[in-house]
């Protein structure tokens, strides 16, 4: 069976022509009628980890009216919004029902160049925003490890970036959003309301975000000034992060989870801020002439077929060793391109294919400050299990965000990619979940593809309020996803 499509691959189909007159009509939604005004298709859909593809009617509204009309396709087995499909698991899938591909709603409405306030459609990607904002001297308030996510996905998962300890999650910068709810009405939702707090991090289950207004960050250049240092083991790493994180707007540590013994938890810290103009003085004239240029580099895409097992303990171990050794013990003020600092993986399109057709998953959890023992124990257990994980990231979060299902809480978050086929992985992660939950921590729903549902309420204590609000707003359960079915959200 094919591993499914990512959102980006869903064909745009015929261009929208006029309003979606009979978009509520189910036959039209099946694509049998190209004049229906929106393109649609029935197709296997999976998350970024490509682990559990399911089939859905993929509907791609091009306008607010078409979005409202596309609720008609959600009758039966419900519907869910999908952005660029960068959630690792099944958050933006809906087996047997509708998946509303929101990337057709792609207008940037206004940018206030003085205040950095942006109004745009939910399907606009952060990549696109960077293209239009940087020349004006603005940057998105929060960016995840990939810029190929939509604004809707950023709010739906209430994403965090390397600046969480300073700036909080994405939704903290949102001033208002337009939400299409199950009754077919479009509501303007502002921070401080129950509906806002349920929607931020609500994984698309309160409705379809159509448009958002949010504030950006002023920047003088498209370069980053970066300090790099090595930490010899986990304790050294935690000590360094604790001591000096508050000096940096952006902070993250890349941790080598294959290192064992005394080197367990060795890491490279990269921390920094947007470079001021003066910092570019050492660069060639060309770069100085256009300090806000945004020129991401693109390498060839990963091949469509990769044998399983390419990423073994040996290959990943070698990679980690090389990358740790090549990092300087200490280097200050290095200028890096914004894209290499924030989105190193975006240089290789479809890099998720390197895990082969068995797919992979990301395990990300957070435990509060004071739970360092738990973090230590977990890192040792992962290292002991020899997970071939070459992208583990450790970061300190700041204050918790208001979203009821928002992931961050003040504490340590660790994220690692692992091939799904690793022997013993399911049981290992189950038992790590227990430790995380017992320590008052949680796993990130945007990354999840395997949590034991029984642990959910312990991890997300505001889940009862979320469920109550959904029952009130959407009694028929129009908005549903594989994630919501699997975890009983």
């Amino acid at each position: 069976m094919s591993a499914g499509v990512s959102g980006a691959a869903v064909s745009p189909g015929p261009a929208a022509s006029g309003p979606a007159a009979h978009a509520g009509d189910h036959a039209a939604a099946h694509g049998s009628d190209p004049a229906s005004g929106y393109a649609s298709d029935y197709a296997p859909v999976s998350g970024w980890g490509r682990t559990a593809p399911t089939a859905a009617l993929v509907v791609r509204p091009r306008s607010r009216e078409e979005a409202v009309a596309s609720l008609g396709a959600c009758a039966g087995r419900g519907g869910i919004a999908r952005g660029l499909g960068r959630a690792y698991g099944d958050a933006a899938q809906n087996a047997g029902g509708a998946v509303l591909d929101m990337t057709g709603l792609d207008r940037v409405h206004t940018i206030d160049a003085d205040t950095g306030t942006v109004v745009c459609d939910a399907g606009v990607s952060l990549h696109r925003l960077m293209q239009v904002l940087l020349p004006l001297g603005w940057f998105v308030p929060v960016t995840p490890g990939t810029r190929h996510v939509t604004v809707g996905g950023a709010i739906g998962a209430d994403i965090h970036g390397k600046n969480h300890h300073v700036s909080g999650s994405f939704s903290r910068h949102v001033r208002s959003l337009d939400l299409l709810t199950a009754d077919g009405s479009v509501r303007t939702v502002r921070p401080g309301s129950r509906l806002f707090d349920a929607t931020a991090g609500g994984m698309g289950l309160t409705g379809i975000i159509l448009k958002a207004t949010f504030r950006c960050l002023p920047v003088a250049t498209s370069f980053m000034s970066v300090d790099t240092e090595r930490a010899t083991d986990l304790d050294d790493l935690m000590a360094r992060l604790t001591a000096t994180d508050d000096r940096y707007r952006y902070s993250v540590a890349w941790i080598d989870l294959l290192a064992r013994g005394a080197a367990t938890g060795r890491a490279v810290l990269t921390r920094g801020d947007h470079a001021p103009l003066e910092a570019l003085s050492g660069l060639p004239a060309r770069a100085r002439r256009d300090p806000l240029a945004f020129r991401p580099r693109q390498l060839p895409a990963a091949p469509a077929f990769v044998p399983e097992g390419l990423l073994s303990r040996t290959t990943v171990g070698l990679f980690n060793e090389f990358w740790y050794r090549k990092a300087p013990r200490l280097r200050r003020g290095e200028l890096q391109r914004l894209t290499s600092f924030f989105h190193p993986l975006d240089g290789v399109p479809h890099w998720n294919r390197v895990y082969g057709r068995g797919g992979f998953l990301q395990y990300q959890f957070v435990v509060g400050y004071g739970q360092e023992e738990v973090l230590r124990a977990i890192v040792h257990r992962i290292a002991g299990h020899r997970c071939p994980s070459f992208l583990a990231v450790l970061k300190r979060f700041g204050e918790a965000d208001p979203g009821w299902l928002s992931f961050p809480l003040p504490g340590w978050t660790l994220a690692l990619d692992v091939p799904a086929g690793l022997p013993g992985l399911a049981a290992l992660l189950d038992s790590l979940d227990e430790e995380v939950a017992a320590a008052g921590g949680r796993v990130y729903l945007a990354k999840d593809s395997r949590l034991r549902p029984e642990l959910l309420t312990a991890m997300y204590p505001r889940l009862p309020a979320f469920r109550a609000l959904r029952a009130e707003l959407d009694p028929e359960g129009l908005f549903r996803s594989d994630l919501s079915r699997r975890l009983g959200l």
Partner: protein
Amino acid sequence: MKDAFGAPQSLLVLGGTSDIAQATAHRLVARRTRTVWLAGRPSPALEKSAESLRQQGADTRTVAFDALDPEAHETALGKVFAEGDIDMVLLAFGTLGDQARDEADPLAAARVAQTNYTGAVSAGLICARALQTQGHGSLVVLSSVAAERARRSNFIYGSSKAGLDAFTQGLGDALHGTGVHVMVVRPGFVRSKMTAGLQEAPLATTPEAVAAAIETGLRRRAETVWVPGRLRLVMSALRHVPRPVFRRLPL
């Protein structure tokens, strides 16, 4: 829903008392399965199977199902799917028959075929349609090495399994791209009720080993699973043995 490892939350077993199915159900309940339906001919054994899964914590119900009564399949299975999504269907019913006796009793031989093949065609199509409507789920079918090449010693059973195997492969192709995963499982000799008292064949295995192979197959979304895995090689060699030689092999 199945998780990233292919572990189902709900399971429907056709042939609820099968030893292989029992071992598989217990293994899956230890993972993520919380709802189990055991379909089978009503009997104390069926209730006992259900009880042992309940003991393990699974919400388990039984439903009357006879492979030899295809007219009733739609109603019996429809009722199960109407109650909620089924993440995995395990088609486990089957009968070995008695080759020597069945050669002399065509009606008995036909019953083997009707159970293993036509019963499975009817039940398989009904489940496939329901899974397709859900847009997800795995249909796991217990075929057999006997399906690979008919042998003198059990060609009645073997031919019924060959039909089932071919049917399942075709069904898998038909469902490609619908979100439904179809998996053919080909065990060799398994020590179970079905083979009690028979002389063991080489590479004999256990219901637990078949269950483990099924779990791995689900994770890989495999289309074919041999148990033990080495049989795949053995059978690919045997497939090419010329008839005059094959006929005389002590199989």
